[in-house]
């Protein structure tokens, strides 16, 4: 199949989901999962640009020990908005709503998600949430940090906590509905022969993500409702003066908050599994281990929240348990890393852009994950808590991991989404730029944190300047690295060469249909006999 596709000059199908219908109504009222994916892509690219701009301003400010640009109060609002936008309005929706929406029905051989109207409603709820949140930012923002800790967000709040909380509250429901939709789709809509253990690993990881969406998002919703109540009525739920307990907020927040960070990384892990399989033309080594490690990560993620609170005076025995369980998360994560690496062993590894992103992910996520273990150990955390070490750690996971995965996935499936190829050389160059810029930005922050520079400060002692300037220089390289794909993706959507159904010679149902796919995805429901059916051509490779 694939060899034929390569030899014959590919053509675009006459009718596909992009040209089946025209006009703004056909987009804003669409129930086609592929078009909804595009709606999300535009929205989150906007949020990413805003959040990224804020990060750039922060790094600019930190070039000078006394702050180059702004008052500390503005800086506080900036890092709060950066964190909240990136987490709730870019990272959490990124892979699930763009790649997930586009690919889940296609990968399992379905015509659409189980509830297409609900899918569109999720987008509108998301946009309402984003607008509400941006409204609070424009009015002056919040200065509490993304964690919104009480009493800074209640009794002593001097920002627009209420509208920010309402925005995040609403965004939670968008995520819940998306997760619900995905879970029902994966359970009930699989094509004949698509058994659980023939599912692409991307589906497994999004399934695990959906479970977290459904179980963690309601907790932050109710917690934010309590914050709003506290703000409006000063009732004392989190106010010690009235008998309330501010630590309760931290427990509720992190019961959501830690699973939330797995919402951000699990989809990327799923993408990387697909990238590695496509880039090595091989079934991922230890399929069922990789699949179950996603589920294991989702399950354990609900039992580790206390590692954010080692220094709040929680019981030391609770600390032991949380520490041990946090170490336990490293096991399924390591299983994935080892299995991806084992897949690459003796494979004919392609060095196209998607695979470069996957390799970058594996390296950076490993650093991010292992430094997480420093923070999970009780004694070490006392020294590193709330320093730049923590900032560097989670950026290695969130940016070096999650965003690398997202970009890699976009590069792999862009030909499927648009039917067009992007310039490979530019893509590789951008990937290397992102990798280099990223390491220069966040590598020095490990050292800064270890030396004791606390996070969330607009000013710092002069002896930290060299490392901070390095970090800011890296951020500017990173910004260029993110900008280049925006340019060549836009170019390729209009002028790129035609891709054909399967430019990578990859396996999986999405590569068996035309690019771009028809509105109904499949002419007739496919019958699946094997997952990752590489093997057959592999004989002449090794």
């Amino acid at each position: 199949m694939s060899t034929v596709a390569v030899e014959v000059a590919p053509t675009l199908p006459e009718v596909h989901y992009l040209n089946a219908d025209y006009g703004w109504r056909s987009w804003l009222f669409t129930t086609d999962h592929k078009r909804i994916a595009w709606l999300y892509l535009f929205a989150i690219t906007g949020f990413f640009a805003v959040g990224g701009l804020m990060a750039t301003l922060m790094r600019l400010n930190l070039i000078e020990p006394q702050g180059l640009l702004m008052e500390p109060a503005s800086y506080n609002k900036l890092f709060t908005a950066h964190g909240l936008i990136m987490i709730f309005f870019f990272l959490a929706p990124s892979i699930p709503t763009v790649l997930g929406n586009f690919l889940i029905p296609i990968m399992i051989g379905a015509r659409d998600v189980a509830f297409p109207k609900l899918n569109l409603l999720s987008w509108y709820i998301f946009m309402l949430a984003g607008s509400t949140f941006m409204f609070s930012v424009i009015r002056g923002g919040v200065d509490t940090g993304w964690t919104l800790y009480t009493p800074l967000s209640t009794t002593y709040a001097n920002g627009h906590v209420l509208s920010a909380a309402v925005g995040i509250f609403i965004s939670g429901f968008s995520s819940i509905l998306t997760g619900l939709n995905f879970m029902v789709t994966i359970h009930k809509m699989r094509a004949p022969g698509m058994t659980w253990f023939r599912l692409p690993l991307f589906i497994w990881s999004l399934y695990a993500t959906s479970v977290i969406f459904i179980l963690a998002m309601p907790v932050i919703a109710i917690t934010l409702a309590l914050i709003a109540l506290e703000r409006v009525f000063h009732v004392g739920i989190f106010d010690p003066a009235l008998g309330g307990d501010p630590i309760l907020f931290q427990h509720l927040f992190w019961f959501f908050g830690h699973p939330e960070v797995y919402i951000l990384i699990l989809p990327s892990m799923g993408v990387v599994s697909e990238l590695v399989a496509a880039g090595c033309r091989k079934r991922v080594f230890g399929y069922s281990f990789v699949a179950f490690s996603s589920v294991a990560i989702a399950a354990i993620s609900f039992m580790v929240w206390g590692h954010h609170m080692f220094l709040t005076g929680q019981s030391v025995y609770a600390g032991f348990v949380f520490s041990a369980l946090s170490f336990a998360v490293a096991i399924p994560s390591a299983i994935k890393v080892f299995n991806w690496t084992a897949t690459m062993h003796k494979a004919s590894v392609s060095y196209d852009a998607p695979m470069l992103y996957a390799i970058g992910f594996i390296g950076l996520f490993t650093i991010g994950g292992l430094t997480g273990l420093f923070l999970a150990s009780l004694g070490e955390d006392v020294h590193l808590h709330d320093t730049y070490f923590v900032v560097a750690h989670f950026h290695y996971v969130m940016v070096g991991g999650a965003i690398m995965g997202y970009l890699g996935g976009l590069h792999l499936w862009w030909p499927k989404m648009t039917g067009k190829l992007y310039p490979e050389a530019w893509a590789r160059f951008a990937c290397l730029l992102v990798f280099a810029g990223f390491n220069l930005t966040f590598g020095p922050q490990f050292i800064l944190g270890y030396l004791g520079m606390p996070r969330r400060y607009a000013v710092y002692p002069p002896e930290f300047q060299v490392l901070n300037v390095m970090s800011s220089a890296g951020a500017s390289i990173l910004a260029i690295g993110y900008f280049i794909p925006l340019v060549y993706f836009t170019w390729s959507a209009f002028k790129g060469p035609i891709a054909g159904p399967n430019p990578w010679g990859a396996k999986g149902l999405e590569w068996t249909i035309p690019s771009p796919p028809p509105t109904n995805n499949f002419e007739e429901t496919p019958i699946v006999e094997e997952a990752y059916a590489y093997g057959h051509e592999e004989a002449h490779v090794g």
Partner: protein
Amino acid sequence: MADAHVTAVPVAHQFDDFEQQTNADTFGMWLFLATEVLFFGGLFCGYSLYRNLYFDAFTAGSHLLKVKYGAFYTVLLICSSLTMALGVRSAQLRRRTALTIYLILTWIMGFAFVYIKLRYEWYGDYLEGLAPAVNWAPSRESMEMINHFHAAVPHVALFFIFYFCMTGLHALHMIVGVGLLTTLLIFTRQGKVTGGNYNWVEIVGLYWHFVDIVWIFLFPLLYLIGGRYV
């Protein structure tokens, strides 16, 4: 359901057949209820913490509630669950009249719950000065009760906050439920439900039973603290 009538029911384009569609719909509601458990869970968690910390205040607060209301609601909701379950059965048997009657009965009990709760119980608490932040001025009798249990007044206020939040969130769900029943009644009248979409009744029923079960937990947790039966 290899029934001849079933084929007449329109199946949405993304589904292969009617069975897949009904299975997906029902499973979707179960997942939604899982979300709901965690949504209420945050409040139950906070409640447990403060009840543990300020047990005296929570006992005093509980004694200030009118237990007869709580008991009445419990009976009301259990009966409404019965009529809802009978409604589901009537829908499956395609008995349109019986379905309409059961849905109306359920509707009346749901509406009565919300109306009595807001109009009499909450409003009564408000007049008595037991609504924190809005009208918090416990009467002399209330203060006697609070002092009897050696409770601190702000902690009793905390009890009432949880009382209003938890029963309020529950009442909100009841209002949504009554709205769903209204929609279902309209569809039943149009013949859409007995025409094959009996599953809609089942799904609303799942939601209704869930909201009832939440009340079954709320009643003892709020009204019966400290072995209180009258």
